[in-house]
């Protein structure tokens, strides 16, 4: 291992791995540091992703696809199911394998990877990020880098150390818990199930994502504002007690999704932020794998280019490129989310009933949101921008 790198990536999730890979592909030296002893574990994720989101970066492979999804079932508080069918919507992943494959692709491109390396500070010289301080097997160490890419997830501390305001308002933090359970026999293997309403997950949603062979991810996310009164865990316990009281639980995990628009600034001299650390999450769905990979790939490429051009200011173009690719779109999703955020149970029920009067072949997500927000004309324009109506 060297002591000086062109680029150091902090965090080896999907966004970090893509940043490392796209940077390494430019022929510059790249090191990716991961605080856990293993890449891809523990998995803090519902693991659903769109097909397009995967295929931009990696050839789909059976070993990390647990289910192929072609239907969404959205369940209102009175139990009415609104079903939207797709040609080929997406997958439920096995993230512990998927993340490994992404990290491998970074390694194949030439990036070095070091696990159990806990980054706890930045080296800042002349107001520019110039390396990282980290703890490795009990020893405090330092590494120099021309550019640091913060892919440190929801905690997003790397950005703070460089003076960016990355902490998130607790209202915008979707606090999640999930179990992976076996003997879940009443599901369609190709459908993602979403439950809405006060009982399940006020202001958020409850999910059941099938993972093949009677296994499913069952979980929910609620705003910290809701968590103030009742925790995500207690909503999950209520649901499991009522619906699946005796099923074997394989894993049980907590996690946070920064569910709002991208940070105002995701670059600083010598530093780029990607993935959850930059809040590159779709604020409506809470999905962040695909958008994190996109953010990571843009940041990695730009950082690599900057090194090759010997022009470190070049990385400041990252904000704009991200904004044009997805940032603007996420702002639209945020407006739609705010439009439906405070809906009552009665409202959800009415939407489901109205939607089920639409002819089956015309039931799309765009149509569903149009039905939901018919009284908010300004949002209908937004819906038309991001969904096929």
């Amino acid at each position: 291992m060297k002591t000086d790198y062109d680029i150091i990536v902090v965090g080896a999730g999907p966004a970090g791995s893509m940043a490392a890979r796209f940077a390494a592909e430019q022929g510059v030296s790249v090191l990716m540091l991961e605080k856990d002893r293993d890449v891809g574990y523990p998995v803090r994720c519902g693991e659903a992703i769109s097909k397009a989101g995967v295929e931009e970066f990696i050839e789909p492979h059976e070993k990390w696809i647990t289910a192929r999804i072609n239907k969404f079932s959205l369940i209102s508080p009175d139990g009415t199911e609104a079903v939207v069918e797709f040609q080929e919507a997406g997958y439920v992943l096995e993230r512990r394998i998927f993340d490994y494959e992404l990290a491998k692709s970074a390694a194949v491109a030439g990036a070095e990877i070091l696990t159990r390396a806990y980054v706890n500070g930045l080296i800042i010289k002349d107001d520019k990020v110039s390396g990282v301080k980290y703890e490795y097997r009990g020893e405090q160490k330092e590494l120099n880098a021309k550019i640091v890419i913060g892919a440190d997830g929801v905690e997003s501390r790397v950005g703070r150390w460089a003076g960016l305001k990355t902490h998130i308002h607790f209202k915008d933090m979707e606090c999640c818990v999930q179990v992976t359970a076996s003997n879940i026999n009443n599901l369609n293997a190709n459908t993602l199930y979403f439950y809405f309403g006060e009982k399940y997950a006020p202001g958020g949603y409850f999910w059941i994502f099938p993972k093949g062979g009677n296994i499913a991810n069952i979980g929910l996310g609620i705003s910290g504002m809701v968590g103030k009164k009742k925790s995500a865990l207690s909503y999950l316990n209520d649901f499991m007690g009522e619906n699946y009281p005796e099923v074997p639980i394989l894993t049980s995990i907590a996690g946070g999704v920064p569910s709002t628009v991208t940070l105002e600034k995701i670059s600083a001299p010598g530093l780029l932020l990607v993935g959850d650390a930059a809040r590159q999450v779709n604020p409506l769905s809470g999905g962040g794998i695909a958008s994190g990979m996109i953010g990571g790939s843009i940041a990695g490429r730009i950082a690599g280019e900057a090194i090759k051009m010997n022009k470190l200011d070049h990385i400041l173009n990252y904000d704009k490129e991200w904004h044009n690719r997805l940032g603007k779109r996420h702002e639209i999703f945020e407006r739609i989310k705010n439009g439906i955020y405070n809906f009552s149970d009665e409202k959800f029920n009415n939407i489901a009933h109205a939607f089920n009067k639409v002819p089956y072949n015309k039931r799309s997500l765009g149509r569903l949101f149009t039905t939901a927000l018919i009284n908010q004309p300004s949002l209908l324009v937004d819906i038309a921008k991001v969904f096929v109506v």
Partner: protein
Amino acid sequence: MNNTFRQAKTGILMIDILPDKCDFCGCCVGVCPEDAIELKEAEIFIIDERCTNCAKCVWSCPIEVIKFNREGVLV
């Protein structure tokens, strides 16, 4: 108040993380305005001199392992 307890920036620390029950998910770190929580692979603690007792971490914890500590009693 029991003065033997750890001191926070604004006085007696009133927030405790129960590390044995923690899942190390990072919600609390993400919402902490003071960068007052240190989280390693399976290790977590509050940096006392930065904590202001704002309680955002308590409200954001999905599994209720961050608690108010009033006079040495977790509530």
